[in-house]
């Protein structure tokens, strides 16, 4: 623990409250402990999800059955998707780093509703357990894909009900976190912390929270309807009874497209914190970054139809959705230009978080530009439902959110644990992971253009070469992942003690000790007028 002054406060990791041991964590309303609870639960699920992904890649190393049959493959990609989407990338950065850092960044002692915050984590765990129930018990592992498309989702004989209900509970947890963050940002900013002084990470959490609040209930009710359809046969999505399965797709994507922005906005926010710190320069275009955040949050609502170009939609609607999809690219590009401009003429310190941030920009641009290939009507029809879509999606969601998450954990690790990780191995882990990532997903663009469909356990002989390369990449990537995680776990115990501000960051979290004391601040900081420039 960093000794800074005589009347040292006990830090949040060592604090002993009413309960001891693990109970002191799972009953803690401290935002920092809840952030770590999320971190650990997400990390565990991530290992499970990554293992399933690895198994899928291994199946695809050769045509025909390699290690699993078609039904198992269907179940594997469903569970991989459900775990990765609902349990990891949607809560991901907001629940972990938002919880841990946002109150400190705005100069508060905790979130507005600490108990509600703990309830959110409990709901998260309940949702996870429900979904695991669906996997372990009952007539079979869900095989619908993570999208639960009607009418198959109420026709399949597998154990879908607990999975759907689990997704609903996870959504509820996400809503409560968003609600909590909105109220916190509105009410608990320190004196002088005006809206236009908020760190950009907080701004992206703000935009994200609105999406969580306003989009999640739509998928909530849709999942309820699918469950009711399964149990009672109410007919709303069942063509036999007059319902329309395409309406299900609309309602599903009304949430699930904005959900992509729930994932990516906080990721962009973390990058906007890392880059100025390591460029040792103020962020370029602070207001433009805020406006682009809110623009992405808003326009992101109106583009869901681009998932459904081939599902049966009027030409007018297709043009409209395609045009709006192109609009979303503008604020995203503004962000990229601002990050690059921040580096321009900066004095760049090459350190692990910066490597992650720089590679984030690289993979995000590939993901974003291939997104335009999918957003354009003519090319979409050509590559729809091929490996191209999978590659694009993983470049954005795994490349974007994953790289940002690893950047964020390497950036804030000394603050969270008060220890510095081994930088050499962190850098080795990054480069191995990066090479593995590119080797794994780049061939899939090529395979998709050649016409290899997604979600099949088998393929034609002509796709063999690309798939071998891709599977090989998955092994490299998993090696990188093992190096990164081992290094982080090992350093939490054996790492050198980190100072208050090891990177020279300017935001408020770098003014509290590492790890922060229980209530963050002895005295709530007051932000002076002259400090307006730095955030």
């Amino acid at each position, binding site marked *: 623990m960093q000794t800074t002054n005589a009347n040292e406060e006990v830090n949040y990791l060592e604090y002993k409250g009413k309960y001891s041991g693990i109970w002191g964590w799972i009953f803690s309303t401290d935002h920092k402990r809840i952030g770590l609870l999320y971190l650990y639960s997400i990390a565990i699920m991530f290992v499970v999800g990554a293992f399933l992904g690895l198994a899928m890649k291994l199946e695809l190393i050769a045509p025909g059955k390699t290690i699993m049959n078609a039904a198992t493959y269907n179940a594997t990609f469903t569970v991989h998707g459900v775990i990765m989407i609902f349990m990891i990338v949607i809560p991901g950065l907001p629940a972990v780093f938002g919880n841990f850092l946002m109150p400190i960044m705005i100069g508060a002692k905790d979130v507005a509703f600490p108990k509600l915050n703990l309830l959110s984590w409990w709901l998260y765990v309940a949702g996870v357990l429900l979904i695991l129930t669906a996997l372990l018990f009952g007539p079979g592992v869900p095989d619908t894909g993570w999208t639960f498309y009607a009418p198959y989702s109420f026709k399949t004989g597998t154990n879908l009900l607990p999975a759907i209900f689990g997704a609903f509970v996870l959504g509820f947890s996400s809503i409560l976190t968003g609600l909590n963050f909105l109220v916190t940002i509105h009410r608990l900013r320190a004196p002088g912390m005006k809206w236009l002084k908020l760190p950009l990470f907080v701004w992206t959490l703000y935009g994200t929270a609105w999406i969580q609040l306003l989009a999640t*209930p739509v998928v909530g009710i849709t999942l309820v309807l699918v469950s009711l359809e399964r149990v009672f046969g109410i007919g709303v999505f069942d063509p036999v009874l007059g319902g329309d399965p395409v309406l299900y797709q609309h309602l599903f994507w009304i949430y699930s497209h904005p959900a992509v922005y729930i994932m990516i906005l906080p990721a962009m926010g973390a990058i906007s914190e890392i880059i100025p710190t390591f460029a040792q320069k103020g962020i370029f275009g602070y207001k433009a970054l805020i406006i682009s955040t809110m623009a992405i949050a808003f326009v992101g609502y109106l583009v869901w139809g681009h998932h459904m170009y081939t599902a049966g939609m009027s030409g007018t609607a297709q043009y409209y959705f395609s045009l709006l999809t192109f609009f979303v690219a503008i604020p995203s590009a503004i962000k990229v230009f601002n990050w690059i401009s921040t580096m321009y003429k900066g004095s760049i310190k090459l350190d692990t978080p910066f490597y992650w941030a720089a590679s984030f920009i690289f993979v995000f641009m590939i993901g974003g530009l291939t997104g335009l290939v999918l957003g354009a009507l003519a090319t979409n029809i050509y590559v729809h439902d091929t490996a191209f879509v999978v590659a694009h999606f993983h470049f954005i969601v795994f490349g974007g959110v994953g790289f940002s998450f690893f950047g964020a954990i390497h950036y804030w690790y000394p603050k969270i644990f008060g220890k510095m990780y081994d930088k050499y191995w962190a850098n080795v882990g990054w480069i191995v992971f990066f090479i593995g990532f590119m080797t794994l997903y780049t061939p899939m663009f090529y395979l998709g253009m050649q016409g290899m469909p997604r979600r099949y356990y088998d393929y034609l002989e002509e796709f063999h070469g690309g798939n071998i390369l891709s599977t090989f990449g998955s092994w490299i990537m998993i090696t990188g992942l093992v190096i990164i995680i081992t290094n982080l776990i090992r350093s939490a115990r054996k790492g050198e003690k980190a100072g208050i501000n090891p990177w020279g960051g300017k935001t408020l979290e770098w003014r509290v000790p590492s790890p922060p004391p229980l209530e963050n601040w002895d005295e709530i900081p007051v932000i002076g007028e002259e400090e307006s420039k730095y955030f």
Partner: protein
Amino acid sequence: MEQTKHVEHDHYDPEASKIGMWLFIFTELLLFGGLFIIYSVYRYLNPDAFHLAAEELDTFIGAVNTVILLVSSMTIAMSTTAIQKQNYRLTQWLLAITVILAFVFLVNKYFEWGAKFSHGIYPGSEHMLEAFSQGEILFFGLYFVMTGLHALHIVIGMVFIIWVMFYIKKRKVHHNRFALLENSGLYWHLVDAIWIFLFPLFYLIS
């Protein structure tokens, strides 16, 4: 090292609670919003069937229930004024009346649904598949889902209000600290407002 005493976060910020409740209400509105979208789409696609099916519903019970909910909204609003005047007895009575009215609403709903069931109108019934058109099946599917979800909200609201009554009894909610009561009122008005839309959509437009 000496442990610093943990200070309970007991700062009371009624403004924050109210913002929180309003945000939750937005969420609820969008939850029902999804259903209203589905209703509009199917009404547009099956105008005649929806017209025909709506005539099966008992407008009288619907109207009575509307009045019941409106009155209960009034009583809970009055309780917020009563607590500020430190009239705790009246506050509790008004809240009790609200809960009783909510219960009467549910009883009416029970008889209404029961009558439908006895006529063979329920999701998945053989009778509906034989005698009803697809549009009518959809109408009743939505009718049961939407009024059922609304009834669930009534139950949650009742539990919420009873919980607040308990807090008032223990004086954890009092004339200087009544955000929780106000929030229960806001929630109850939401439940009421949703019914105000459900009633014409299912009972009146025919």
